[in-house]
């Protein structure tokens, strides 16, 4: 068991782990992989595990100095790359990768490039990368990570072996959270419901008091929603957005510290723009995530109401607010519940098209209020 324990890091992907493990053992590792799977399904963990398995003499023991360095993210031959442009990989970044690809490894037998968000290649950066991706030197392994196969440029995808990751089943995910954080199953299930089943995000939610507060506020709003007048609804939407932005301040202060340290070390002459841009992207992503959580909580609450109304109480995720749900569940019809759930989906879609989150949530709350007032 101890001989191959890096693969235990991805317990939910036994098929993928088995496949990669066989590839390493049989020395048939491909030069390029495309890992496709929803966020939180363990793509990056699997890529790092692959690096361990290739570098480590014991096929990935997870305990030797080599594995330690790979897992800690400071092995000189494991390169983890993220987009540096505002929304895409930039050509210069790709050139830097190509330059490194063409040099011999520093200390290991191979060089491994883990390229996150492979759907973020624009045609220019992709074209710069194609030749390298197609026929790198023998000692190169390129692992591209993406959420969906369709969003990756076909020229990129066709040059890789595709490895599909399954979404983590809810029971396994909940068990993982219970084990890692020591929360009870009910809390784990509620957090997973809010974060769309993504384990790392549910983990973050459970760790952040600010985000838990936003969840509570959202549930409270839903409970009172039928009694609100138009002004109250607008006010509630504003408060919800405020609650989402609250936890962002923590992120901002961490980023500020990082920037200051960076300036102190590199001096004033070096441009801090790449770092600032990364921070900005991080903030936007966090805010999106926060808004997504509000929608996730709303959705799971409505789903719970539907489940209770149909006498399937064992499927309820948000058990902590069961009393408020019972009231709604008593009168709601499946058709009405679906209408309300549709409102949430519409809001999610609108936000992805860059509608202001506040506006989208306001509309959603109004729609849900209609349903709750007239649940037939």
């Amino acid at each position, binding site marked *: 068991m101890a001989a191959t324990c890096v693969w235990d890091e991805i317990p939910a992907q036994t098929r993928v782990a088995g496949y990669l493990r066989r590839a390493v053992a049989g020395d048939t590792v491909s030069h390029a992989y495309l890992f496709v799977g929803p966020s939180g399904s363990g793509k990056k963990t699997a890529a790092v595990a692959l690096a361990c398995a290739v570098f480590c003499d014991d096929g990935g023991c997870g305990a030797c100095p080599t594995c330690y360095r790979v897992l800690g993210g400071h092995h000189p031959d494991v390169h983890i790359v993220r987009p540096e442009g505002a929304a895409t990989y930039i050509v210069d970044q790709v050139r830097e990768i*190509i330059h490194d*690809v*063409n040099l*011999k490894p*520093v200390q290991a037998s191979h060089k491994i490039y883990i390229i996150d968000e492979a759907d973020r290649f624009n045609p220019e950066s992709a074209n710069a990368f194609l030749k390298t991706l197609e026929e790198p030197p023998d000692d190169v392994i390129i692992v591209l990570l993406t959420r969906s196969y369709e969003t990756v440029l076909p020229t990129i995808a066709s040059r890789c072996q595709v490895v599909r990751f399954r979404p983590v089943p809810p029971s396994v995910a909940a068990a993982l959270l219970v084990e890692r954080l020591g929360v009870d199953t009910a809390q784990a299930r509620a957090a997973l419901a809010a974060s769309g089943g993504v384990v790392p995000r549910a983990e973050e939610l459970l760790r952040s008091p600010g985000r838990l507060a936003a969840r509570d506020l959202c549930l409270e709003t839903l409970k009172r929603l039928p009694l609100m007048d138009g002004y109250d609804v607008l006010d509630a939407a504003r408060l919800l957005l405020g609650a989402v932005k609250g936890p962002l301040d923590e992120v901002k202060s961490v980023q500020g510290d990082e920037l200051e340290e*960076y300036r102190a070390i*590199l*001096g004033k002459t*070096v441009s801090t723009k790449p770092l600032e841009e990364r921070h900005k992207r991080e903030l936007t992503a966090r805010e999106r995530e926060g808004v997504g959580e509000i929608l996730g909580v709303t959705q799971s609450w409505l789903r719970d109401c539907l489940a209770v109304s149909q006498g399937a109480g064992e499927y309820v995720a948000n058990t902590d607010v069961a009393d408020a749900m019972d009231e709604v569940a008593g009168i709601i019809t499946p058709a009405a519940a679906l209408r309300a759930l549709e409102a949430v989906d519409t809001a999610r879609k609108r936000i992805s098209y860059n509608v202001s989150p506040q506006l989208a949530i306001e509309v959603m709350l109004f729609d849900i209020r209609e349903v709750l007032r007239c649940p037939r």
Partner: protein
Amino acid sequence: MKVSIARTELLDALSIASKGLSSRTTLPILSGILFSAQNDELRLNSTDLEISIKTSSKARVEEAGNAVIPGKLITDIVRNLPESAVTIETTQNGATISCAQSSFVVRTLSADDFPKFPDVTPGEMVSLPTGVFSEVVHQVSRAVSRDETRPILTGVLVVVDEGTLRMAATDSYRLCVREVPVDGVLGSLEAVVPGRAIEDVARLGASAEAIKIGVSENQVVFAFNQTTFVSRRIEGTFPNHKQLIPKEFVTRLTIGRQDLLEAVKRVSLMAQHSAPLRMKVSTTDRILTISAQTQDVGEATEDLEIDTQGEDVEIAFNHAYLTDGISVADGDKVAIEIVSPLKPGVMKHPEGQDFIYLLMPVRLG
């Protein structure tokens, strides 16, 4: 860590180590130099993950330890210090640098985060006299390619075998090969070294008597004085350049190197927008006519007296590449051998075979 060292010695070590600094924004630690003090020795380490430099000098170590100090900053500080002993003392998360009446406090980074110096065990080390090494590097490095699409050409081929040192570089438009006998050098090696790295070594090692070279599977190591310079090797095999060099010639001309260089530089003024430089050899008159013409700008012609053998010929070259070749060639005279206007011309020493500069012609319109 607490260590004292003479300012000049520290500055020398710093100027070597700062060659290895990286400005890559993703890893701020690489912009720092790792100082480690122990056993009366201060060791400096720097790396940009492609090359790694380790250098050391004698110092008075009062307290052993490590620290990573921003590289550019400390070099600037030490350069401006007066000539006296410099003391570097680390505190909780900073370092104090004091010298005579001045003192500086700088931030430091954790030494544990600094990439380990590559653990290289070359098979054998070959020692070369610095003078020869730098001269050869200077000659061939002009021809190194800057184009990353053929990575192997961004390196210099270094071969030591049977008492000779050979280096070759090409960017597929020209090829420069230099071979020199090195007496008393034992051992053999072959490696392709990134062009920038070998130029840095030639510059940094200038004051040393000899430079030792060793090759391991992934790295090539240079050692001189107290410094070890490690560079990653380039993937791939260097093209077989020997088969490219023509064995025979149809026309051969010999001319004073300085005269040719000056004439080419003059005529090149009229070879703008990469217009070619024409060379017309008349064997009966013993005249080489160099001319260039740029449309809408003008033209230039110059006649030079030469020694020739063979037939008349007219050939054209890129002027910048030609200038490069003439300026790094050996000796007072150069010989140019031409097979035909569509085959590469060869520039070499009139008597020897140890310097060869092969240049692709430009097709005449």
